[in-house]
């Protein structure tokens, strides 16, 4: 007998809890299927260099998606992640190239800019009660414009900071294990994911993410300063966008002020494909990473197969629907 009716829980729910490890393994299913299919379809797919390319292609979207995950779990949304990333990159460029300061200050500039912008979004939402969609839509546009203004509508190159590209494209792991030249960008993605998962699962901030998304009013009635926590969560998400800004700038060895809009949709899509509900209260970082990987594997695989671009789009749309559906079926059966 596995179920515990005395507990008042259904057997399915009990199973879910009893075997969370099992569950998490299975969540890879759609991803694994995709990888197998592409491997069979093209010998060029399943190669170390391509696997690394896929991971690297996931890094920026993955980090943005982690930021979006935090906010979405609170029941909010952040449309500004893409342009905030760019704005942080531009600020790093200003500090490193225009002001000629040393690398750590550039990194700090990106992170602080992100946290500050997140604080503003969070304040608009928590204190001024502006719906998250509007507040972050407004911020998206403001940051997009400011990136252009501050950069003078041109890319800022990091030529004076030769170590800058190393942030994303160097390989710390590769320097230790030469056969595993995983770029730092990927390492950073996984570090950010681990940190975010830890924060969500093990800290008060994470707890309030879920609690706010689940029933904000109940949390407030429990005497918790919900506004402050919410602002904190948006600020953290903003700082994570700052990391994404560093990653992309380092990869392109430049802050491209015009880039960024549209990235929010990819990030949110990864979150939702990963099983986090847009209505808040539930979600996992692992799911988000899998969601982001599904998206990059798909794109990479279809490109390697030289599928015509218009059909790539059709297939991507279809496979996203199918993957999510399959995932839901699997959970329902379970």
């Amino acid at each position, binding site marked *: 007998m596995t179920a515990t009716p005395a507990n008042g829980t259904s057997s399915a729910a009990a199973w879910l809890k009893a075997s969370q490890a099992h569950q998490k393994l299975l969540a890879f299913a759609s991803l694994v299927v995709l990888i197998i299919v592409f491997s069979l379809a093209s010998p*060029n797919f399943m190669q170390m260099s391509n696997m690394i*390319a896929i991971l690297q292609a996931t890094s920026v979207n993955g980090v943005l998606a982690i930021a979006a995950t935090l906010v979405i779990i609170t029941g909010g949304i952040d449309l500004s992640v893409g342009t905030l990333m760019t704005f942080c990159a531009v600020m790093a460029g200003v500090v490193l190239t225009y002001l000629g300061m040393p690398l750590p200050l550039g990194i700090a500039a990106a992170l602080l800019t992100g946290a500050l912008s997140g604080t503003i979004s969070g304040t608009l939402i928590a204190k001024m009660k502006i719906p998250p969609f509007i507040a972050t839509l407004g911020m998206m546009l403001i940051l997009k414009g400011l990136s252009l203004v501050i950069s003078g509508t041109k890319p800022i190159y990091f030529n004076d900071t030769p170590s800058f590209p190393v942030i994303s494209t160097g390989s710390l792991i590769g320097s230790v294990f030469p056969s595993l030249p995983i770029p730092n960008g990927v390492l950073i993605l996984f570090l950010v994911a681990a940190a975010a998962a830890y924060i969500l699962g093990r800290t008060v901030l994470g707890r309030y993410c879920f609690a706010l998304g689940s029933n904000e009013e109940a949390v407030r009635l429990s005497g918790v300063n919900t506004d402050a926590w919410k602002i904190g969560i948006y600020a953290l998400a903003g700082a994570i966008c700052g990391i994404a800004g560093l990653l992309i700038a380092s990869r392109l060895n430049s802050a491209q002020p015009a880039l960024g809009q549209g990235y929010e949709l990819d990030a949110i899509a990864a979150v939702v494909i990963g099983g986090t509900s847009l209505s808040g209260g539930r979600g996992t970082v692992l799911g988000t990473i899998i969601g982001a990987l599904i998206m990059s594997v798909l794109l*990479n695989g279809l490109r390697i197969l030289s599928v015509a*671009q218009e059909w790539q789009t059709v297939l991507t749309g279809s496979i996203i629907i199918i993957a999510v559906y399959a995932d839901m079926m699997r959970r329902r059966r379970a």
Partner: protein
Amino acid sequence: QDKMYIPLISKGFQHQFWQAVKAGADKAAKEFDVEVTFEGPDNETMVDKQIDMLSAALAKKPAAIGFAALDSQAAIPLLRKAQEQNIPIIAFDSGVDSDIPMATAATDNIAAAALAADKMADLIGDEGKVALVVHDQTSRTGIDRRDGFVNRIKEAHPKIEIVSIQYGAGDQLQSTEITKSILQANPDLKGIFGSNEGSAIGVVNGVKESGRKDVVIIGYDSGAAQKQAIKDGLMAGAITQNPVGIGYETVKAAIAAAKGETVEKNIDTGFYYYDKSNIDDPKIAAVLYD
């Protein structure tokens, strides 16, 4: 007040190319003491947004309008309206299929891309596999550059095989990923053509990240990164237009037209192929932008 007012409605705004056009227009504005504004939609698919910009420009009762049509036909009703109001139109960048514009300051993208194809053929020994990373699948410049390149290869270089044409929206990151996939799928690829600045830089990045050194890259437009890539030998060469000249000539022609002077119908702003050898040549350096 009574300064002559000339809005330029372009196809884009954020790209360096467009910023260079704007710089040329601003230069002319200063020189001839007129007021110029410069506007364009976020990307080259937004035909209707461009039409809205054109309507707002018309509402300002300008002396003349510079216009780089995303889709000539779609803009014709508004161009007619301008004509009725005696507002002269000067087409720039890639021309307008209509006789309304008094003058056109544009690049022949088909010919320019064909030149890129010839250079590519030259550099890879007239045979082998090449690919294209194009900035747009449906916009005029995207189509012309793709077709200009592809058709020239087909006509003149039968031993060259085009294995892949993919579109990266001129986004550097997307173009990087595309390039890496193309290289992954075609390890024996010899060359890649990137059809505008963002695409070309993306190709350079992608090739670099794939750890390949033997791929011939031909780009389009300039910008600091592309110029550097050519100097560093990462990129073999690129086509450049004369964006500053386009902006400048557009405004100049607009002023003339507004004053009722006759203007030359076709202002050829030209295009050039540049590489390590001639990049510092003053004639070339003058049409490159950072």
